[in-house]
């Protein structure tokens, strides 16, 4: 059966096989072999672990099969949020942002850090929101790790969706609502490089 290449991300190629999705972490020739294999194996393992854990908390694709560099999971027949977020109606937009906040809260409450929260790593199927790509995830109960996770999300919104970022962030923050982490986020942001400080 012919596999259909549906996406070429930064570290993997995604193939569709009927109702399944095959995520293949491809070799990167720019890295030396030992480092390349170490990273691919480690991230693959980490992603499987995180996907399985997250499956009970929020909507993520279900993991079906795993080997060293491949994960076979449910195919989500939806659209990448990055491409559609600007076309959503007001109501849909509010609902999606609220879900993002609640999802992140659910993950963080169980000590799961996504590590790469961008709109490229979220999918929308109808009104259902899925988080994907847990390759950079980690398990940590540290407030700092959670704050950096939020920081990544905020920066991604500001850079890619600058026109709606502020509105989106307000809803996400309110839905997220873990005061301790939001306080730490301010500290992360004030650390010199990121903001003008006089």
């Amino acid at each position, binding site marked *: 059966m012919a596999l259909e290449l549906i996406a070429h991300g*930064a570290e993997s190629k995604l193939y569709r096989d009927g109702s399944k999705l095959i995520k293949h972490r491809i070799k*990167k020739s*720019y*890295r030396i072999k030992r480092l390349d294999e*170490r990273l691919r194996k480690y991230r693959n393992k980490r992603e499987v672990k995180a996907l399985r854990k997250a499956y009970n908390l929020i909507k993520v694709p279900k993991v079906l099969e795993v080997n060293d560099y491949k994960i076979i999971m449910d195919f989500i027949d939806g659209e990448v949020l990055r491409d559609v977020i600007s076309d959503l109606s007001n109501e849909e937009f509010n609902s999606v942002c609220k879900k993002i906040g609640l999802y992140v809260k659910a993950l963080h409450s169980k000590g799961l850090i996504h*590590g790469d929260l*961008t709109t490229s790593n979220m999918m929308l199927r109808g009104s259902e929101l899925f988080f994907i790509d847990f390759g950079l995830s980690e398990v940590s109960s540290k407030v700092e790790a959670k704050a*950096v996770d939020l920081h990544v999300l905020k920066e*991604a919104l500001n850079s890619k969706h600058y026109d709606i970022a502020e509105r989106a962030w307000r809803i996400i923050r309110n839905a997220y609502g873990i005061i301790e982490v939001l306080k730490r986020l301010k500290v992360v942001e004030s650390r010199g490089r990121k903001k003008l400080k*006089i």
Partner: protein
Amino acid sequence: MICLGIESTAHTFGVSVATREKILSNVMDSYKPKKGGIHPREASEHHARVCTDVINESLSKAGLSHKDLDLIAFSNAPGIGHTLGVGAVVARTLSKTLNKPLIPVNHCIAHVEIGRKITGCIDPVTLYVSGANTQIIAYQGGYYRVFAETLDMGAGNFIDSFARYSGIPFPGGPVIEKLAEKGGYVELPYSVKGMDVSFTGILTNLRNKLRTHELKDLCYSMQEHVFAMLVEVSERALAHCQKNELLLAGGVASNKRLREMCKVMCKERGAEFFVPKKEYCVDNGAMIAVLGLLMHDAGVKFKKSDYLISQRQRTDEVMVLWR
């Protein structure tokens, strides 16, 4: 239209004369500390000492005199306060005495613009790696936006710090590159957080390993780990922004291994890779002149406060009217 560009954000005092069509001269004189890193006061004293000579040499190489200049551009941000001040005073003096317009220029954006001009790329994702800065910059919606950045120190600073701990004088990059050629693999931390990178953990790790490992192996492994991190986030940015040109800029862009890794990544992705020659990668006056001309032609208007230096101005604070 002839523009004089003055660069003085850090250890290099650079002056260039350029027209819209051509860079006529690009002269620089860099401060070299006797030990340790850049000492701000010493660096600014160096700049004050060499500035007239560098300007005169730049003009004479271009075959022009002060009277031929139509425009003075200078880097007003971001950088070391002491050294920025020298460039600003020199630029203001020239502008005042020659009665020509003065253009304040953002240093980071100048790196991107000279890259575009020299290499001919159109809408690149820029991996800008220098001493103090490590950013991935792409143009979107009227601004150069920062898609990825170091969370702590710049890659160049990191390399120089490692060099200092190993007893290699500033700037350490070239010596480390040489040593790395004969080194072997040692496992180090690999620190990518989303699109951002961080270096301090690796620095501590390397410092501890100095006692137990050979320097050449650490140099090799440091390069392999750190550059792989930079190339990885560049690739992420290419995928995220859906662009297919990568431009490499900044002092660390002189490193051959980093260039090679970028090239291989782009080839595997089907993207195009661009890097200007070394003289335009490091801090230089030509990039300031080039951006000065672009801003002048776009009719950018300045408030009085825009002419002041700003150590911390962010790349994405500057409205881009010339694209």
